[in-house]
């Protein structure tokens, strides 16, 4: 019985949160990796573009809520998502046209693109704060839980409860769908293959008659969809606050690099590696230890390896270790 309780506690406090956080990171890192693979720079505006996508979705959600539109028990935000994606696509395509295209034409060094992306980051940051403000925004509705901790306890008679939030369920399902769809697109459609070809060998792709501007445009649209979805899922799961999206930049970058920049499969693996490390290192293991260990060995403290404030340190340390020992990442990425 104690063993079962320990498993349930592990699932409740570690596995489920880490899987849903990992899914969010993976979707975000897919965007970073695609931009890196096709446009060949690290996009610092990624986090704030995520905030932009989430913001538009929130605004549409509020509007729908005011009209009484609902898809209970699912959150209305899912219905608003396509609008968010459309607006974000428009936004990233505009920034590409106004900002990045020029640097592509003059074949600027990657670092110049990064600088420009910092400019875009400032602007996005300003726009989001200007429109929706810097504070916390609530927009989640519908049923909060698929499974409540209390119901689980009553059902199983265990001491530990297992709570499964709707947002976590949606996140996991969405991540599976998106990854499947994206890989199908990249591996089985002409456009997807041309994107891979362009990322692999730009000169040869040009020689083969692949239109670079089209590849870039399709990439931005996919990235817009990915970041909007990741942003909304994160907002539903935790809460929407512009600054937290900027802070997501570090774990997202870490996921993409750990997996191997430019490699979509790596981005997904990286997302989960980072998420699981963050959650396991900052979780107070006492609860589980109490079930598993004999009384004499019970830890006196919380048995928490690091305080939750250090979660960035976890992604950072993993990042550094991977960079030092395997600079191309776990899956082979580009190391230009």
């Amino acid at each position: 019985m104690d063993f079962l309780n320990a498993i349930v506690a592990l699932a409740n406090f570690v596995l489920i949160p880490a899987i849903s956080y990992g899914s969010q990171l993976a979707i975000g890192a897919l965007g970073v990796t695609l931009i890196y693979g096709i446009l060949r720079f690290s996009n610092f505006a990624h986090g704030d573009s995520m905030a932009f996508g989430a913001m538009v979705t929130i605004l549409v959600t509020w509007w729908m809520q005011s009209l009484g539109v609902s898809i209970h028990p699912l959150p209305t935000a899912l219905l608003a998502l396509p609008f968010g994606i459309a607006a974000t696509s428009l936004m990233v395509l505009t920034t590409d046209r106004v900002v990045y295209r020029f640097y592509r034409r003059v074949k600027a060094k990657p670092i110049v693109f990064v600088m420009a992306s910092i400019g875009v980051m400032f602007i996005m940051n300003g726009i989001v704060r200007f429109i929706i403000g810097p504070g916390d925004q609530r927009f989640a509705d519908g049923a909060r839980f698929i499974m409540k901790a209390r119901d689980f306890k009553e059902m199983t008679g265990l001491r530990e409860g297992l709570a499964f939030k709707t947002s976590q369920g949606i996140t996991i399902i969405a991540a599976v769908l998106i990854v499947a769809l994206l890989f199908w697109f990249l591996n089985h459609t002409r456009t997807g293959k041309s994107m891979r070809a362009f990322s692999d060998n730009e000169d040869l792709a040009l020689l083969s008659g692949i239109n670079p501007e089209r590849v870039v445009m399709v990439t931005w649209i996919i990235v817009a969809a990915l970041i909007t979805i990741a942003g909304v899922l994160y907002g539903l799961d935790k809460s929407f606050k512009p600054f937290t999206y900027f802070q997501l930049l570090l774990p997202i970058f870490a996921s993409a690099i750990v997996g191997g920049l430019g490699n979509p499969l790596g981005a997904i693996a990286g997302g989960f590696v980072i998420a699981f490390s963050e959650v396991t290192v900052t979780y107070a293991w006492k609860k589980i230890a109490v079930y598993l260990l004999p009384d004499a060995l019970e830890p006196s403290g919380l048995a928490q390896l690091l305080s939750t404030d250090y979660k960035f340190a976890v992604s950072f340390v993993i990042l550094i270790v991977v960079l030092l020992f395997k600079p191309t990442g776990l899956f082979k990425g580009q190391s230009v």
Partner: protein
Amino acid sequence: MADPFLIGDGMTGGYGKNGPDILHDCTISVEKGEIAVIVGPNGAGKSTGMKAVFGMLNLRQGSVKLGGEDITKLSPQARVRKGMGFVPQTHNIFGSMSVEENLEMGGFIRTDDISETIEQVYELFPILREKRLQAAGELSGGQRQQVAVGRALMTKPSVLMLDEPTAGVSPIVMDELFDRIIEVARTGISILMVEQNARQALEIADKGYVLVQGANAHTGTGKELLADPEVRQSFLGG
């Protein structure tokens, strides 16, 4: 005499807008279904000469004609559409993509069914059929060159240009590659190639060009050049 099928006539120019001239009044041509080979010492402008024919550098003088049509002003991409296939010396495959995907990308500009051409490439290079689902980057050097040539053949070009196709492959593989190239020429495709291995290349060549410092030094059939004592002395090592 009618114009040759493809001719770069009196080409003078260099890389970039204001780069120094590398080619000086250089003429390279190839007839339909024939093999023309460019040889010469290091730094003679062999690859540059071929790239000039393909439109990768600025010509100050001279012209390039394909089948009688002046294509001097066209970009390399446009020349591909006109029926020219180009295999660069390095980075000539999509390493992370499968062999079959490489061929598909080769035929990207085509709007018709490409499966038949893929089949023809497989017949020409049977090993590629075996490895068609493997990532091209994992193949051996010789096999990769076959992928590269196969990719270029996907547009059904009338001229195939090869930049040192045998660089870095073993002598046995080199012989096999040359055999394949002859086979390609027999299907009616003109071949223009740059080669380091001058002797072997001239043996299969219908026409040979010896370039020195960006200008034509000797021109003739492959046999003539091989027999020419001066050419033998300076470039073929006696």
